[in-house]
């Protein structure tokens, strides 16, 4: 596990690791609000994500799932005018506090996107990209990382003979697993996935779902999906988002996946999962 501080200066790190929350909580939001300029995109979210679990975020499109996911690794920082308030914690540290090193944060909270986005370079270089930028130069060490990450991503057997080929030359499903391997190579603690299977065929989708189950033994995974069967199949916890009257995304229900799907507390959740709208 990575013990570096996510603060730019690592002084009084321990004192800042407030004794908030419960020990197995990896990520936590409390009254989190996200704005795009004056548009209140996501409203008052409170939830907690446990270590080594898979949490699914579901809901109709446009309800703020991606926006919410990108709050966890501060990807919204890239969008001019986007702002976040409330508390967002990673390992008990408020990641929006001044002095947080966003680059280090993203190293520990990796992200996989909706559309597979391998870099226009070889398969090997794609996986080695992160470790290289983080200072690993030794060829043998890189070889090991690449092999291990591709194994973990269940892609090794398919590409081990063509590591020098372009990352863009393999199939969509393979590209997505390559992107997962690229994230695994920097040894994050959390992996955020934004509809990672939406561009893939059913077989590739099942492969990625298997992979997620395996990875969840070591990693904390948060996945956005519009596919409810997928949420039901892979996740431990499910968060259901919907837009309110002001078109802001709100958290309608959050709980263990089995309960959310079999015995929803909220009428809107029930309507959504039984397919009555959305």
């Amino acid at each position: 596990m990575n013990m570096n501080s996510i603060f730019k200066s690592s002084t009084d790190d321990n004192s800042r690791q407030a004794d908030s929350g419960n020990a197995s909580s990896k990520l936590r939001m409390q009254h989190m609000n996200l704005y795009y300029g004056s548009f209140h995109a996501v409203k008052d979210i409170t939830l907690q994500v446990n270590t080594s679990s898979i949490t699914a975020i579901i809901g109709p499109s446009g309800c703020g799932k991606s926006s919410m996911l990108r709050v966890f690794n501060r990807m919204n920082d890239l969008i001019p005018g986007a702002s976040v308030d409330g508390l967002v914690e990673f390992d008990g540290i408020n990641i929006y506090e001044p002095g947080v090193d966003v680059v280090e944060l993203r190293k520990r909270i990796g992200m996989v996107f909706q559309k597979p986005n391998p870099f226009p370079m070889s398969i090997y270089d794609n996986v080695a990209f992160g470790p290289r930028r983080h200072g690993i130069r030794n060829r043998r060490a890189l070889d090991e990382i690449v092999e291990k990450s591709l194994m973990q991503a269940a892609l090794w057997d398919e590409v081990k003979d063509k590591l020098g080929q372009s990352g863009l030359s393999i199939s969509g499903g393979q590209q997505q697993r390559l992107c997962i391997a690229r994230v695994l190579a920097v040894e994050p603690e959390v992996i955020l996935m934004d509809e990672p299977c939406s561009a893939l065929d059913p077989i590739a989708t099942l492969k990625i779902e298997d992979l997620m189950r395996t990875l969840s033994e070591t990693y904390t995974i948060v996945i956005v999906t519009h596919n409810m069967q997928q949420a039901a199949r892979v996740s431990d916890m499910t968060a259901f988002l919907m837009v309110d009257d002001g078109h802001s995304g709100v958290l309608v229900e959050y709980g263990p996946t089995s309960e959310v799907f079999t015995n929803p507390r909220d009428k809107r959740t029930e309507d959504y999962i039984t397919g009555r709208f959305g």
Partner: protein
Amino acid sequence: MGSSSIKKRYLTQHMAMAILVAAVFLVVAPIIFILVYMIANGYSSLSWEFLTQPPSQAGRAGGIFPAIIGTVFLMLGTIIFSLPVGVMAGVYLTEYARNNWITRLINMAIINLAGVPSIVFGLFGLAVFVLTLNLGMSLIAASLTLSAQALAMTITTSRESIMAVPREYREGALAIGVSKWQTIRHIVLPSASPGILTGAILAMSRAAGETAPILVVGATFLTPGLPSSPFDRFMALPYHLYTVSAHVPGMPADVKWGVAIVLIVMVLFFNIVVALIRMKTRKR
């Protein structure tokens, strides 16, 4: 559907095709005409000696070797100075500059820079590089002057190539804890480099044909030898062509056209290089 309507459709298609072909011909014909005319009138002057010897009898005999070398140096100088500055400016403007009035002013200045007549760049070079920086009438002053003129193009193409790099690539890098600068250095610039390079080469080959600016910052009609340092004066093909065409009485016509052929071939060569780079990167 009746066969007459099909026939009519074919007729329209043929007519559209004919108009398109005519339009293409109108564009291509003058170019071909110039090339053919030039070669027909100039080929008799071309020889190994013409390319490798210095001129004699005020250009009426001998070769144009020093002018070829001078133009090559100018092109090199232009790309050496304008490419790094253009790329850095492009990176700054796309990746770091805030969208405020200063940035907009800079962008407007760059657009207008492209429209400034080249003789004005010559006067600017004379005032700044030759006199103020005291570089004298020299190869380096001329290179800097042509670079200043090329900047509008290198900045613009750098900026466009950088902006054309898919956002997904940047996000992929940032999302694994790679810093913004590393992302620019290892993802954005490599992806943008074919575009940046083609822009720089085009700017360079355009600089090769400039006559007016170098006229006032150091080009000379006849030098005793090749420039031995960047601070020497130099000969260059376009200026040589201008002088032999306008100021040397009794100039054999085929020599004039011979100079033009050499200049055109050099410029065409780099345009073909650009086309090849484009083709190769499109295939990827």
